[in-house]
């Protein structure tokens, strides 16, 4: 048996917290807020996020066509504009590129949430830099060396890979399909996941059968014999290989995926579905679809509904749809959330044969857990940034924060460790965060803010108490460490405010947290010098 392949860096393990729920009944959770919280956390341990990276910068305007601005669309986009009779209508305001049309049924079923105009302030138009910003969740000018999902994993598994796999976490904490681990999964010191190169490498790992992948050199003679030998050792030495093999043996895809090699994204999602079906406890998967940097030949001049971008959108739509079908047939649809990211969108005005780097673009969240529908408006093709690019409606970090909080039930400290700042959440999912649940349970909505903000010296923190009672108002740094108690004690119902002197604080972002008998709320304060 020869494995003519090089797999690299396949490690594995699972993040899962110990299941503290054994012995409790579902009824018990419902009755006790504390137990309910615990139950939600435990359910979150079972949840999976599949991140789809669309490398190169997807052209959002030709993915979702603004039916409300068609005259501007045709004026600006001569080279790539889809003829009106070929646009597939999603709703009255929004149309789909014809090859992206398969997602309409996902949308109609409520399994797709679209967020328009996602970006970040001051977009960097370098692919690598902007990709690094999306991977690390940094500001435009901020430099971070770890990825947001790497920090997410590290928070619960700070020593990884030391001590992993172990009895409680036998599976990889994260898996990326691809040749090299992206920055997304880079933790504070180590990569927090493993890579599986591609479907061929996966099949080989699972079957132990020789395959001939594109990157594998066939060699003969004494050197060739040794390369075969080393590849065998490599395959055996993947820490998680036997676990992945046994899980893949149990897992079966139930949907009909495109033939191997016909859709590079579907090939990857097929692996992910099979591993989830087989019981792998990995919570984070990263897959990649490249080629969106369509400066040239975005669309075929003879038929603009064909070409590079058309093919990519077909891969994406077919991939998401087949994966979702598979999960449904497998009975796993409530367990898995998908999300796309792309380092930037593309410019409204086209160049001769394609589109240049842009700014904001749509993000897609799919799966049974999403609320469905569209968040945000169609991007305006006339109210543009000075360089002719689209204006931002949402910061991509709001979506990250929302997913971590609503899907993985990350608490405030966890969120602050991963995201470094607090970001306003969007109502993306049918699941809600721990904090939301607490708030809903007591039917209390509290708002809190400070003015001025940003501040250099004195600022006033204002809030409204629905009931009289004991309050505890604390100030924290972005790592969640408490810096000061701002107010503590009994306060009366109604408007309250506390003066706070920020002049002794270092420049940066802080958040404050108001704990009452009814619930907790928080806000962010920015200190400038």
């Amino acid at each position: 048996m020869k494995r003519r392949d090089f797999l690299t860096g396949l490690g594995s393990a699972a993040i899962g917290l110990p299941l503290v729920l054994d012995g409790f009944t579902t009824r018990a959770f419902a009755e006790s807020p504390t137990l309910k919280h615990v139950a939600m956390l435990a359910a979150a341990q079972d949840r999976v996020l599949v991140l789809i990276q669309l490398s190169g910068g997807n052209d959002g305007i030709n993915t979702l066509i603004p039916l409300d601005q068609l005259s501007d669309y045709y004026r600006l986009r001569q080279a790539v504009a889809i003829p009106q009779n070929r646009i597939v209508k999603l709703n009255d305001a929004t149309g789909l590129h014809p090859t992206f049309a398969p997602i309409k049924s996902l949308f109609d079923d409520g399994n797709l949430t679209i967020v328009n105009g996602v970006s970040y302030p001051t977009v960097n138009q370098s692919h690598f830099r902007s990709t690094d910003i999306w991977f690390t969740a940094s500001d435009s000018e901020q430099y971070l060396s770890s990825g947001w999902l790497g920090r997410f994993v590290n928070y619960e598994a700070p020593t990884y890979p030391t001590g992993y796999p172990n009895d409680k976490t036998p599976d990889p904490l994260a898996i990326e399909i691809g040749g090299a681990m992206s920055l997304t999964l880079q933790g504070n010191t180590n990569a927090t996941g493993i890579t599986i190169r591609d479907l061929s490498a996966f099949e080989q790992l699972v079957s132990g059968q020789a395959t001939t992948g594109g990157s594998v050199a066939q060699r003969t003679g004494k050197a060739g014999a040794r390369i075969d030998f080393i590849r065998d050792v490599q395959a055996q030495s993947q820490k998680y290989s036997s676990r992945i093999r046994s899980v893949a043996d149990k897992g079966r895809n139930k949907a009909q995926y495109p033939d191997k090699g016909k859709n590079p994204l579907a090939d990857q999602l097929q692996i992910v579905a099979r591993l989830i079906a087989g019981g792998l406890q990995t919570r984070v998967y990263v897959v990649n679809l490249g080629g969106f940097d369509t400066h040239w030949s975005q669309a075929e001049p003879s038929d603009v509904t064909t070409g590079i971008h058309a093919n990519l959108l077909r891969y994406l739509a077919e991939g998401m749809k087949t994966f979702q079908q598979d999960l449904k047939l497998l009975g796993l649809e409530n367990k898995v959330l998908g999300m796309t990211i792309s380092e930037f969108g593309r410019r409204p005005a086209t160049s001769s044969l394609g589109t240049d780097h842009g700014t904001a673009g749509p993000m897609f969240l799919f799966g049974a857990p999403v609320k469905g529908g569209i968040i945000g408006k169609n991007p305006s093709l006339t109210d543009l940034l000075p360089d002719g690019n689209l204006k931002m409606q949402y910061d991509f970090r709001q979506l990250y924060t929302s997913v971590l909080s609503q899907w993985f039930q990350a608490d405030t400290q966890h969120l602050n460790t991963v995201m470094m700042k607090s970001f306003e959440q969007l109502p993306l999912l049918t699941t809600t965060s721990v904090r939301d649940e607490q708030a809903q349970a007591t039917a209390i909505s509290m708002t809190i803010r400070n003015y001025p903000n940003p501040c250099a010296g004195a600022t006033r923190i204002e809030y409204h108490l629905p009931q009289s009672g004991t309050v505890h108002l604390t100030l924290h740094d972005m790592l969640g460490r408490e810096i000061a108690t701002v107010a503590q004690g009994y306060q009366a119902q109604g408007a309250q405010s506390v003066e706070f002197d920020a002049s002794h604080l270092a420049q940066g972002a802080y958040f404050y947290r108001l704990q009452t008998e009814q619930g907790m709320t928080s806000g962010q304060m920015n200190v400038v010098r």
Partner: protein
Amino acid sequence: MALMDAYTGVLDESRVKHLLRRTTFAPTTDNIKSLTGRSATAALANLLSDTPIPSPPIDPTTGEQWHNKSYNRDKDANYNEYLKSWWAGLMFNDGVSLREKMTLFWHNLLVSSYPAVQDARYLYRQNALLRRFAFGNVRTLLKEITIDPAMLRYLNGNTNTKATINENYGRELQELFTIGKGAEVSAGNYTNYTEQDVRAAARVLTGWTDVPEGVTSRFVADNHVSEDKQFSAAYQNTVIRGRSGADGAQETDELLDMIFRQPETARFFCRKLYVWFVGTEIDATIEKEVIGELANTLRGGNWEIKPVLEMLFKSQHFFDTANIGAMVKSPIDLVVSTTKYFSKYFAPTIPSQVSDPEGYYNFMKWLWQNADTQEMGILNHPNVAGWKAYYQTPLYDRLWMNTATLASRNDFTDKLLGGFTIATKQGMTRFAVDSIAFAKDVCSSPSNGDDLVDKLSIDLTGVALTSEQKLYLMDEVLAPGFSNARGAWDMNWSFYAVDPDNPAKRQAVQSRIDNVLKFVLQMPETHLV
């Protein structure tokens, strides 16, 4: 054309790399350049030229030598570490020279280990002996090692007296150090020698003991068996006449002379050299044309090793492409040569032996410790037969690779790029290869991704990568996800090049170059030599 005919052409780059990888620890880009286009004769003149005897090891905490002092029970374990670090440093600093690979060869043939000898001064003395004979006379070396104090301890020669005969050295001298065990044709008859010869040799060697004061050996006539020693037909029924008094020591010379009269002894050494330097598969043709010819040279040259090395490394057979990349790289070779290859690019620079001896010794300790973890510890052989990779059929060099050592090898190469910490006079210092400095040096146009991945990998792999593999490095490792990966890389390199101090721009290119180097260093091709 006979296999040992001289390779008369000029050496092309691939043959220069082959020669440097097999014979030195310094297959650096500069050394490859300097020998390419020259003749094998010219290259051998460099490789075999005598080099000054290095000054002895020190205690880097005091700067003082310890090999010439009395045994220090409290510090000896430290001295052993210093000795190993000193030796690793000699390997690391050895240039275009065979000296250190020959010293290591002798160490693996004429084994002594610290756990058995328990005196670092002894092992320094032995190590200096092996180095002095790197290009010396084999028969003289064997005479010296037979009464070397460390060897007297290691194989119990110091307990071999007429009252209590200890056969250990008398056996290993024949079985492992000189003539070798042939087929066991009858009970106790190993073709080349018999059990009778083991007993006779042990009696010849009675009387030798080690002297801790001054680290020397002494012949104690009272302990010597003064009767005649009768050898078997394997040695032409030789009788070594018994001598009494100080003259008893002369019998040891006669024993060695008898062994060295046997044609098989010369073949034995030449086979060992072949397995160490060329390959493990010795068929009838190689036995006749290579081993036979080398053995003739060894005997004809009165046991001088230099002419044998010269003949071997100038031969058509050595430069046969079938032998290039046909061995698994040993751990010491991997650790020392790879670190040496990148040594110019370490940030900060490697500590100086003169201005920071502790830092220097600690750095070199990191090298031998890594080799140790990969199951090749110096002065720490598993047993008297040496490292299994040089004798255990049928796997031989493949034995360096198992699931544990592969992980350690990958860990080592990842650390070269990712960083590792060593105590220097600046305190705990983090060292890493500055991959951008390296890339700029080896590649004149690093913005050209194809050229860059070629130059990054070209000197590292034992066999050249295929064009397909290099495309994979370009498309899937350097700039994954882009239909125009080259354009994306070119642009990002340009961003960095005009603003090299910007950490974000630097990270964008450095992390991707690191990925390529880490990937290449893990490829099976890189583990070949």
